């Protein structure tokens, strides 16, 4: 796959030009220090190395500039007669042919490799982004499936225990989607169900058994209902004859919100 921006792999800004100038200066100084030792031998090598390093770190344009300026400096300073550029002999021709040829060849190869490397980095970044998107969507799918399973469990629970249900409460009526209608639907499916405006607004539906529960207990669970076992007073035959009954509260986290279902554990 072609990535046209791979040719823009090099860093931007003026820093790369400063680095290129520094590399050119360093090459000239090193070659000048070695000049008593080397004499006219290999006048362009230091500039070739500088140009290749600049190509690797700073890109094509600074590298070409370093190469051209290096050629001038090498010919002027390190090719006899030293300090003269107007005399052209075999040494000058040798430098003018071999140095640019070799430098351009190496720079071209480095440029090609750097573009391929940058292209691979960009494609790897795309692959990583896609993998993470896949994982996030997989997580969303699992969450949706879990919520759906929970909804099915809750509906089965309501169908199984509809005669012993006391109330169904939405934990967060404001954010449940939509809590009122769901609770109302559940409530109307059971006999003796009661959904008045106030309770519907609060996300509470009273079910078949609620008429037998002591009013104080009912008021308590309306506010402080938690999952687990509760003991509540149930009307037993005669008037004001209350007996304790074990009740169970189950919590369901469904796609339509979180609900607590309270039933008598008959």
């Amino acid at each position, binding site marked *: 796959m072609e990535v046209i*921006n791979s040719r823009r792999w090099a860093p931007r800004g003026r820093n790369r030009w400063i680095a290129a100038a520094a590399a050119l200066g360093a090459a000239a100084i090193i070659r000048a220090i070695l000049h008593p030792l080397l004499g006219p031998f290999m006048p362009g090598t230091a500039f070739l190395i500088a140009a290749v390093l600049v190509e690797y770190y700073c890109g094509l344009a600074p590298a070409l500039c370093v190469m051209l300026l290096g050629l001038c400096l090498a010919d002027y300073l390190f090719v006899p007669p030293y300090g003269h550029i107007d005399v052209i002999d075999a040494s000058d021709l040798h430098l003018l042919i071999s140095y640019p040829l070799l430098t351009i060849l190496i720079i071209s190869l480095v440029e090609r490799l750097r573009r391929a490397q940058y292209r691979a980095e960009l494609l790897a970044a*795309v692959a990583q*982004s896609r*993998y993470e998107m896949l994982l996030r969507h997989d*997580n969303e799918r699992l969450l949706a499936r879990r919520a759906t399973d929970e909804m099915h469990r809750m509906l089965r629970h309501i169908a199984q225990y509809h005669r012993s249900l006391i109330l169904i409460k939405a934990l967060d009526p404001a954010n449940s989607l939509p809590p009122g209608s769901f609770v109302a639907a559940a409530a109307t499916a059971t006999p003796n169900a009661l959904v008045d405006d106030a309770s519907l607004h609060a996300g509470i539906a009273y079910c078949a058994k609620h008429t037998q529960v002591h009013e104080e207990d009912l008021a308590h669970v309306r506010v402080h209902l938690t999952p687990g076992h509760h003991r509540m007073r149930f009307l037993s035959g005669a008037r004001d004859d209350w007996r304790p009954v074990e009740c169970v509260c189950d919590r369901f986290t469904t796609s339509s919100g979180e609900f607590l279902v309270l039933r008598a554990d008959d």
Partner: protein
Amino acid sequence: MNATPFSGIEGSDHAVLLLHGLSSSPLELRFLARLLADEGFATHTPELPGYSAGTGHQPMEQWISAAIAEFDRLAARHRHVSICGLSMGATLAAAVAHERPAARALLLLSITLNYDGWAIPWYRFLLDYVYYTPLRSRYRYREQEPYGLRNEALRSKIARAMQKNDISEVGPAFIGLPALHEAGRLAGSVTKKLKGIGTDCLIIHAIDDETSSPHNARFVGTTIGASFLRTIWLDDSYHMITSDNEREVVARECALFLRESVAATVSSHNPAPVVSRALARRLRQLATVARKA
């Protein structure tokens, strides 16, 4: 400041301020705005004086002020307000986020700090100097193919629209030098402010963006001060990622990030659950890498 016909700012506690590109119109964000509205977010895509197409010339400080005024209007009505921008709109969005740290999330789509993509001519830097010549009011930068679109069918449709009118659904046919100059100033100002932006940030950028190279997104990703940062790279789009081949991916990821940002911070006692083991592993890996860095 005008509201566009597809602004919907009622009935949600999370609003998204959508800022279009330089000298363009809210049309280029139409698809994203529609999908965000479908996902339950209130969206608002204003036209800003001096910044939007056909609204004259204003300095970039006025652009920021106008965008901040729009943000404040939304903040007065909604519990959460996020900012989303495309191209130079993303740069403007970052400037607004710097001035309004209460912003819930910052979505930077094809952010442009430098015009350095592959379709930008090499002599582009000369335009910065032409601004100081009499050519300032005469020269206009003309948009050319591929118009920010990898999708060829859409590109030919846009080419026809550009020939008939001065503007299309992916931007203007021409951009004046004063606007480009102010955009450069805005980018320079935002570059210095990035470290001070702590808003949750999503960056989406195409690797083959012909207008702003991936260096822009990388620079923002490494510089911005946000603790919740996500970068998504696309490979089948050019600059106009809200209209191109991957517009659905862009819109879906924006909506997901906005939801996660709210879940991660506002409801910190009940964050978005991670049930996928593979995702949990990946998040642990990323956390380890972040700690080492």
